[in-house]
């Protein structure tokens, strides 16, 4: 359904994303893992068409997304990494703006917004300016905005950022339900626990390159580890975290 073919993104000569390819099918949740600066968010921006790849293409249902970007985005929902929203709008007004631009009929839009705001626990703050929202509240507005038009493809980039435990649990259930309803879901994160519980398949990215692409179970079996965290550490971590922590503490103490 959604396919990345040999995606490359260069900034000032350096390859931020280097030859990344994968396919996400309807009903599948693909985990996209990587440490900070590994190129996860850049990949997400290319998948949404916000950033043009330096090489490679994104395909949707057998066509390049650039051939009908607007048509593709009508079927796409995205929760970006940074919760940038218009600070002078209220949560409800932001969702109205998004829904209207997506040309949802007024009555249906109103019903969906009301329902989503209630379900996300934002009813009381619905008419307050977003500038007064906490990070978690902004994240909920982003998630509601991404689902407002019932998209076929949903991309989550660090969606649990700022969410409390209950909301994060609810989000994991929601992702499973979306997949069960035939949506193709990409879940980009560095929270290994969440990826392990939500995703059937995982891609691990390190310095822009794919270093692993398999099911969570297969990855664990292949590396003879009991958790994805250990697999991840082996694949991308070339320093000893404990030793680095010790060095940081020592550096501060002797400063």
């Amino acid at each position, binding site marked *: 359904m959604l396919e990345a073919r040999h995606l490359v993104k260069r900034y000032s000569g350096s390859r931020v994303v280097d030859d990344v390819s994968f396919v996400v099918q309807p009903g599948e949740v693909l985990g996209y893992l990587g440490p900070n600066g590994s190129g996860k968010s850049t990949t997400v921006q290319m998948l949404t068409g916000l950033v043009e790849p330096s090489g490679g293409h994104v395909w949707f249902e057998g066509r390049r997304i650039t051939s009908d970007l607007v048509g593709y985005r009508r079927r796409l929902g995205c929760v970006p990494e940074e919760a940038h929203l218009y600070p002078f*709008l209220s949560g409800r007004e932001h969702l109205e703006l998004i829904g209207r631009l*997506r040309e949802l009929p007024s009555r249906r839009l109103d019903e969906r917004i009301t329902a989503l705001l209630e379900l996300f626990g934002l009813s009381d703050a619905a008419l307050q300016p977003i500038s007064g929202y906490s990070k978690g509240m902004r994240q909920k507005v982003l998630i509601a905005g991404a689902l407002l038009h019932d998209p076929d493809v949903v991309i989550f980039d660090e969606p649990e950022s700022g969410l409390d435990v209950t909301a994060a649990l609810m989000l994991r259930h929601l992702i499973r339900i979306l997949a069960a309803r035939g949506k193709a879901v990409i879940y980009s994160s560095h929270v290994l626990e969440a990826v392990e519980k939500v995703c059937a398949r995982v891609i691990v990215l390190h310095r822009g390159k794919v270093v692993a692409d398999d099911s969570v179970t297969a990855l664990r079996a292949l590396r003879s580890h009991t958790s994805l965290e250990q697999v991840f550490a082996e694949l991308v971590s070339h320093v000893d975290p404990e030793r680095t922590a010790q060095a940081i503490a020592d550096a501060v103490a002797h400063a």
Partner: protein
Amino acid sequence: MPDATPSRSGLLTRHFLTRLIDNDLVSPDADAHKGASVGLAMLLSAGAVVTMLMGGQYITTPLPMPAVNAANYIDDALIYVTVSMLLLAIVAVVAWDGLALDTRDEAILGPLPIPRSLIVRAKLSAMAALAAAVLVALNGPPTLLHPISAVAMLPATFAQTGRLMLAHAVATGAAGLFGFCTVLAVREVTRALLGAWWPAVSARLQAFLILVLATAFLLTPSFFGNVPERLAASSDWRVAANPTMWFVSLHQMLAGTVIVDLRGPPLPRRLRVEEDRAAERHQRAQAGAGPLAAVAPVGVAGSFAVALVAFLWNARRPAARARTPRRGARQGATPFAWLMTATIARTPAVQAGFFFTLRTLARSVPHRAALAVAAAFGLALATIGVGRALRLAPGTGLPQVLLGTQTLLIACLLAGVEQAMRLPAHLPASWSVRLSWPGDARGFIAGVKRAVVVGLGVPVFGLLLIADLTLLTPVQAIAHYAVGILLLLIALEARFLAEHPLPFLTAYSAGSRIKAAPLWFLAALIAGAIVSAIEAAALRSVVGTITLIVVLTMGWRALVWHWQRTGAPREDDLDLFQPQLDEATTLKL
């Protein structure tokens, strides 16, 4: 560590000073130092040029007359005092958010081991430095040059000239300080009274003060002249209640009779009569200035004390987070929103453009400021136009000056809208609009145009309608109102036929059109004269009125039809976003 405190204090003061001059109202796309340098240079050069122009009357006369010079010098004092007071007040309003410790300051400085008193002192020092810099730049050249030019042709000593300089410096400085402190006092007292509700009110109060001060600034030329007579009547409450007259009086008391006491050359009889009359005017002004001059220091001390106490009161604890009414998500659309969606904004894309425009113009500080300045110009012109129309003798027919005022008001509104729509509503948030963009700009832009008419044209022309009803018949006034709305619609359609940014969404690179303002104003004057002549002819009869409205309606509809056929959209309107998205991506990386 006794030596550490001064350096920390200096560092904090510089930090706060940068924050005062680096805000979106002054320099949305430039660095603070550049903005400050340009601003101060403009003040210095403007002060010098104006002083030289005003000094011409004293220098170019072949027969200098001390009493006439002295009387004119009092007139000049009002100009300098008023400009100093209003400009310093405007500076304070523009630096609004930097006038107190805000939540960002609290978040950054709060956890650091810095005594709160040190932070508060640094904030006050930064404000004092800003006010002092503007005062010196604005009043420095006139303080040095104006007294010299006033006595250049007369035998004044250094001491006498120095006394005039001192009077000028004290009066204009005190007036400027009064203006700055009054704004600060209004801000801090309101903040103290409102507590947690302050953030919800702050930007609105700022926009209101910009509107009031800019309008007052633009209207000041109409209040100049006959200052000695007004000083002589200082017991009249209208004079006594005017702060500018306090500082003119202070100036007069400090300058005393220096100029009038100078010996001029022998004068012919006709000029001697004029000189004697001027001496009497000066004498009466001098007598009337005494009581008011005493009010000036009290006013400065009072505004300073109130501002300082309120500031310290508010600074004793961290800034409050915004609080707004908690209302449920189930609350339905307001009657206004319901009416608009049922009538002029029926499709989702039009609704998106319509409501986004209204909310951006009403709530975003830079957009509101751009509109407030334009509205101030418009209101000043309207006040002058209505004032002139009121002075016309009854029975002189339709006051053309009143009819032309509406066209000038439209020009001002369009200039404000043009500037506002070139400012992105919030650059980092544009991704959300881009991802949900319907691929056709027409609906969104149609919504923007309708929002400008409903949100600006209807209420602003409504204000003018009140004045129109006193000078025109009800039918003429309403027809004139309708003509104004139609002209605004036509102007907006014509604007969007040309190359345009995607309103509130395209990046800063679209740039400012401030350089074109004089040409725009000239064009507006010519258009105003032509339109008012046509309107004056048409409104004399019912047939003429109907014909004019029909013609304008047809012209508007023709432009709408033309725009819908040819005026965009492109195949993919998303390229209109491109500049800022590249920029945002680069910044993020």
